[in-house]
């Protein structure tokens, strides 16, 4: 698949602090990429640069469009971002109005807006929330509404910037499963920036950042097998990966098994 995001020789800093120095990155269309790294590795700055909230000096192209002042509106039509704290992301009194906001601003036809809202509400099972006040929703419901507000714009890329950090595990799984279906159905490119490496198991690729540099990148399990590098960066492996690797070390297992029941059967096959 062609690259939907291309970063070439990106140099960027805040005041006297350099974050990126001749940084390069490519993401293929339709990929689900997890970007991980310790605090201050540049993950959130990367998000800001991708959507033009900070100036990347022509180093970034999104879907063949250069991220600059001239093309920024077109770029932002292609990317949707969900942040961790949604308190300030909702601006309307009802869920329906919040989802409609972006389309209204682009002067979409009322009938088209209504059709898109109803379609996405059915897909995300939030029809019953359309007349609710977004500020009174649970964490998981808020994330679904934020997702709906983005998907209704039909972006090609969705970025989650620590978006699931405040949710409980059930809500996290729900959102990730919804995204998984949409990722496959709509061939969305998903970029998940997270501290929680359990979430990386949903994606096909991982990029590991540290101090503005790519330390490692590759297929999800290939990267997760590099226990020593990840631990040195202060990252915590997903439980089943960690357990499998440790059992491998003691010759009790010879593979990475992600399903708990399957692993138990492997350890005690006769019982």
């Amino acid at each position: 698949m062609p690259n939907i995001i291309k970063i070439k020789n990106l140099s960027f800093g805040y005041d006297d602090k350099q974050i990126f120095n001749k940084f390069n990155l490519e993401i293929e269309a339709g990929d689900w990429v997890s970007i991980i790294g310790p605090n201050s590795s540049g993950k959130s700055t990367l998000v800001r640069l991708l959507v033009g909230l900070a100036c990347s000096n022509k180093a970034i192209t999104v879907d063949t469009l250069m991220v600059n002042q001239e093309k920024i509106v077109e770029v932002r039509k292609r990317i949707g971002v969900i942040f961790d704290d949604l308190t300030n992301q909702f601006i309307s009194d009802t869920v329906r109005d919040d989802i409609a906001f972006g389309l209204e601003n682009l002067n979409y036809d009322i009938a088209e807006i209504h059709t898109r809202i109803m379609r996405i509400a059915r897909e995300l099972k939030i029809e019953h929330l359309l007349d609710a006040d977004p500020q009174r929703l649970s964490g998981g419901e808020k994330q679904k509404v934020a997702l709906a507000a983005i998907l209704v714009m039909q972006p090609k890329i969705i970025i989650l910037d620590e978006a699931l950090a405040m949710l409980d595990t059930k809500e996290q799984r729900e959102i990730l499963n919804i995204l998984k279906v949409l990722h496959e159905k709509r061939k969305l490119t998903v970029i998940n920036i997270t501290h929680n490496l359990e979430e990386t198991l949903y994606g096909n690729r991982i990029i590991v950042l540290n101090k503005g540099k790519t330390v490692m990148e590759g297929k999800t399990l290939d990267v997760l097998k590099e226990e020593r590098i990840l631990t040195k960066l202060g990252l915590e492996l997903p439980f089943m990966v960690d357990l499998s690797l440790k059992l491998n070390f003691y010759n009790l297992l010879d593979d990475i098994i992600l399903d708990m029941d399957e692993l138990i059967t492997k350890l005690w096959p006769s019982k």
Partner: protein
Amino acid sequence: MEIIFNEVSYTYNIKTSLAQKAIDTVSCKIPRGNITGIIGPTGSGKTTLIELITALLNPHEGYIKLNKFKIENNKQISNINNLRSKLGLMFQFPEEQFFQPTVKKELEFGMKYFNYKLPEIDKRINQALKMVGLDESYLERNPFELSHGEKRKVALASILVFNPKVVILDEPTVGLDNRNKKRLVKLIRRLKLIYHKTIIIVSHDVDLLYVLADYIVALNKGKLVTSGSKYDVFSQEELLTNNNIDIPKVANFTNKVLKRQKIKLGNYCEINDLIKAIYRHV
């Protein structure tokens, strides 16, 4: 300081059409000098529970007892500041509350507001920094320029300057990478073991609480699901799952092995101990 909840209920917007019962007849004990984790799905009442403990809210039914203090409906606590001085509450993302240009000014702000004398202020600041593992070199630094982990420590220090008996932490590790999380865990343990604080942690991270906490209070839809030692609570798999409460992965694994293989691996919180137990039984 032990905290006792006796048949406590609280309803937001009581006696209106928007009334919502957030805590429903909860009775439980938070033991003194231990670390208690409060868990439950979103909307279960965890934050309301800690607001009741700190008397930010008064219960509509029942009462909460903290030593000689009793928080109940329609009864004002005489000397409420005395109660609140014994409780320290750190909200989620506490560094968003910074507003002073130096760490020193952040730490002294509360004490100056309550007219503490200067020598006392300096003494308490030094003690609080020591508790969180920071030295005097941080005092003149800009809190906004600190690392994530350092910011979280300064936020905690700003509560510890009042030397509370009870420290309440709402999602203390959110936003921290694993390295900073481990440092904070170490710090919290020190507060319990060396400084004998009673610590209450509200967190979605049951894996963290399985390692750190001694006791667990589990809520769902405002009701108490169960409470007790962490091993007892997290062995009640069906009860927790039926109430949408997560089980720590290590506990989940040992529970499954017991159920399926009838092998008791033992109570382990950390994966390395679990590996040793598996090795013995395979």
